[in-house]
């Protein structure tokens, strides 16, 4: 067996991020999706662009909270936030806000590679030992860590159902830079097409 540099750095274990995200979004039905900036947005775009996707390209820390506002405005729909460990770390306080708000229709997926992938693969807090699932649970947001395709499939089904409160799933993935799949960067376009698919007026 060949030991690679990645093995030594602990970068090789975990799920394939593209496969995991594509599996979560398979047969997505009427899910409304908000993505954090960087690789999670590319993963969601690679799984298939959709009018009900809103991709952030900045405003780091916003994704889960944008999901909260959307979930509160549309309690009849299930909202899925797909973001990364670095993005969620910048919005840790938001988990407290989401816990207190108690939306029954908000799920947060944290694609956790333990690194800041966009900026040179520096280790993030999760790569250095912080457990976002435990932080989430301590705030009062139900959380689980997903490590296998079986875990992903069980959650894929659960995402279609309302729950007692907000949920967070940490998906442990390999730290690797996969080819970029770039979503549109025009935020007004993304906003307008998202609202249009909900039947809302465009200014």
């Amino acid at each position: 067996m060949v030991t690679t540099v990645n093995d030594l750095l602990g970068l090789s274990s975990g799920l394939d991020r593209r496969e995991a995200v594509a599996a979560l979004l398979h047969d997505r039905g009427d899910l409304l999706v908000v993505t954090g900036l960087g690789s999670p947005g590319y993963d969601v775009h690679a799984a298939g662009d959709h009018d009900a996707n809103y991709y952030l390209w900045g405003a780091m820390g916003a994704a889960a909270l944008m999901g909260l506002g959307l979930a509160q405005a549309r309690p009849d729909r299930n909202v899925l936030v797909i973001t990364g460990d670095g993005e969620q770390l910048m919005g840790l306080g938001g988990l407290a806000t989401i816990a207190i708000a108690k939306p029954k229709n908000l799920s947060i997926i944290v694609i956790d590679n333990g690194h800041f992938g966009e900026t040179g693969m520096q280790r993030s807090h999760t790569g250095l030992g912080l457990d976002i699932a435990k932080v989430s649970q301590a705030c009062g947001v139900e959380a689980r860590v997903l490590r296998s395709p079986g875990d992903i499939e069980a959650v894929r089904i659960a995402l279609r159902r309302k729950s007692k409160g907000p949920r967070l799933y940490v998906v442990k993935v390999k730290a690797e830079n996969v080819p970029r799949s770039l979503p549109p960067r025009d935020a007004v376009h993304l906003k307008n097409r998202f609202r249009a698919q909900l039947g809302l007026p465009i200014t």
Partner: protein
Amino acid sequence: MTVKGKMARGGGARARKVEGGARKSLGSESQDWPQAVYGALRNADVRHMSFVPDAGHSKLIELFTADPDVTSNVLTTEEEGIAIAAGAWLGGMRSVLLMQSSGVGNCINMLSLATISRFPLLMLVTMRGEWAEFNPWQVPMGRATEPALTAIGVRTLRAETAQDLLDMVGSAATMAYEADQQVAVLISQRMLGRKKW
């Protein structure tokens, strides 16, 4: 249909006429401003509110959180409210954000979400550090509030009197929710009155 929680409640009711909202002018009783502003916002179909508390906003916060047709969120830091308001608008709901001037400093990068996406944004900011201020730590951000908002692309309106404030909230609500603008109404510390220590 409702999001239930201690403070998170969403109702389907459209804007209903609320006491105070129909008033076109305020008398010398400037203490009435929270009721008048609440009424103006509810009549503009604002059904969603987020806040970091400030003493100057306490009555307005009480009015919103007691309203079963309004979803209210208490925040850990002000920038959360920028993202929440954007999400609410994506889903078709008008949101207002209440904070103190010190909180504006926490919001700067997050405001790029509102400005680049042209998300409607209405912030009501109570000023500190500018009039009979006892706490010197409030002064730097009080001085920087308006320039910082202007620099990131948020329009500011500054209310010196209760009547100013009521007029400006009505104007700002139209510009935000009808014209996709980002507007902060700054409520002067002189109008709010001297804080008791």
